[in-house]
């Protein structure tokens, strides 16, 4: 694991506080979507299919900060859409840094070099660019349906690292991914010098253009076992090792849909980042009036049966780390030995 100590401590203190105050349901990462507009149309993405007037809209910085304060999560992930197309991204990040929120700015990096050269961002331990990379050049360009994006992203990563920014990668894997190529991809990212990598299987968005390549649960376990068995010591993952073990089929977790609540121009999305079953007007409304028992594998909800995505299960893994001696011991062991 390659999360900086200060961030680890902030999350630890936050989770322990929730436990000590008896909070059964608490958010870990706020998924803040300031806009749906994007400069790519990826095959597996179901986030950007809206009429023009919706794609033109975006949240104000004030709306974003109100959501951040309401939610209280120590980590704010900014996906979208493409957040670098958000005209107020610089001021938003600055405000979040002032609030000591750990930010993962999830970007395809097409605009990153330009924004860095314009001085939109300042390096901070609170800010990490989480660059979307779905594999080596051929796989990534195919996933984003455009040639040349991999090279642009690599160039932007180098530029960000040169300027002292934290850089991580986020990778979504689909059916047909080659374990060997993914391992080569990890080597490439480590060679570039990224702080850590994040992995997740794709979720079968009903609105995504490609409906054929989403992984089912057993295939997810097979794929991630092949990729992560015998991991190289130099690979660094910016996520819980217990979550990675879950992807490999070594742990059986239930979803924590409230762990990564999502806020966007429509409000607080019910129940989670992936399903859109309605919107709540406040965070409190989301937490108290969502029928959580209708979601997760045990609920029998068919939309949840094959889902193993990080936004539902990483919070479960973190909760286990701080909720049981075994979880804590296993996390420490995996972190120290690098074995999964």
């Amino acid at each position, binding site marked *: 694991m390659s999360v900086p100590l200060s961030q680890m401590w902030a999350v630890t203190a936050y989770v322990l506080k929730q436990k000590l105050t008896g909070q059964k349901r608490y958010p870990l990462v706020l998924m803040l979507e300031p806009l749906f507009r994007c400069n790519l*149309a990826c095959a597996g993405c179901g986030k950007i299919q*809206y009429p023009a*007037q919706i794609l033109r*809209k975006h949240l104000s910085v004030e709306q974003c900060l109100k959501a951040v304060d309401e939610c209280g999560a120590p980590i704010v992930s900014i996906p979208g859409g493409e957040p670098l197309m958000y005209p107020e991204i610089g001021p938003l990040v600055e405000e979040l840094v002032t609030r000591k929120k750990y930010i993962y700015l999830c970007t395809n990096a097409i605009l990153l070099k330009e924004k860095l050269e314009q001085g939109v961002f300042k390096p901070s331990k609170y800010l990490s660019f989480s660059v979307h990379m779905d594999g080596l050049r051929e796989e990534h360009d*195919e996933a984003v*349906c455009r040639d040349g994006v991999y090279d642009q992203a690599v160039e932007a990563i180098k530029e960000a690292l040169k300027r002292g920014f934290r850089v991580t990668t986020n990778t979504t894997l689909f059916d047909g991914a080659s374990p060997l190529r993914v391992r080569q991809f990890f080597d490439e990212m480590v060679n570039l010098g990224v702080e850590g990598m994040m992995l997740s299987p794709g979720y079968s968005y009903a609105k995504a253009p490609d409906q054929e390549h989403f992984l089912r649960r057993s295939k997810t376990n097979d794929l991630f076992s092949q990729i992560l068995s015998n991991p190289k010591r130099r690979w660094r993952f910016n996520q819980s090792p217990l979550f990675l073990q879950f992807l490999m089929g070594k742990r059986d977790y239930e979803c924590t849909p409230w762990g990564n609540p999502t806020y966007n121009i429509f409000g607080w999305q019910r129940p989670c980042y992936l399903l859109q079953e309605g*919107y709540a007007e406040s965070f409190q409304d989301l937490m108290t009036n969502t029928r959580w028992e209708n979601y997760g594998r045990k609920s029998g909800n068919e939309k949840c049966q094959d889902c193993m995505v990080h936004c539902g299960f990483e919070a479960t893994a973190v909760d286990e780390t701080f909720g049981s001696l075994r979880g804590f011991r296993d996390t420490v062991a995996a972190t120290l030995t690098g074995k999964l």
Partner: protein
Amino acid sequence: MSLEGWMPVINDYLSLAEVIDLAFDYRGNTTIIKNDGVDIVGYIFNRNRDVPEPYIQYFDQAGNGPFKLFYSEIQNIKFTGKDTAAGSSWQAWVERKEKEKGERAAPASADSA
């Protein structure tokens, strides 16, 4: 199957609540026909029937909103806007890549012949 262009008929077999659910799931603009005869074109992003007075929320065609309308004010909803989730961008990409691969392979086959 896309609902683009559908003009539902509310009757014993299809309730307004069902049409609203479909409109909520639809990724395009719809035309909301109100009981007072006024038509509104917009994007329905939310509906809530777990409250005493069920309602929908929408942004109009110019992006203004969000506005709220009670179910009791709605007569019908037509699926008049383009279904943005029915696009074929990915299929077009796959076909183009296949064609490129074919063109790259063709000269090589000609050379070997």
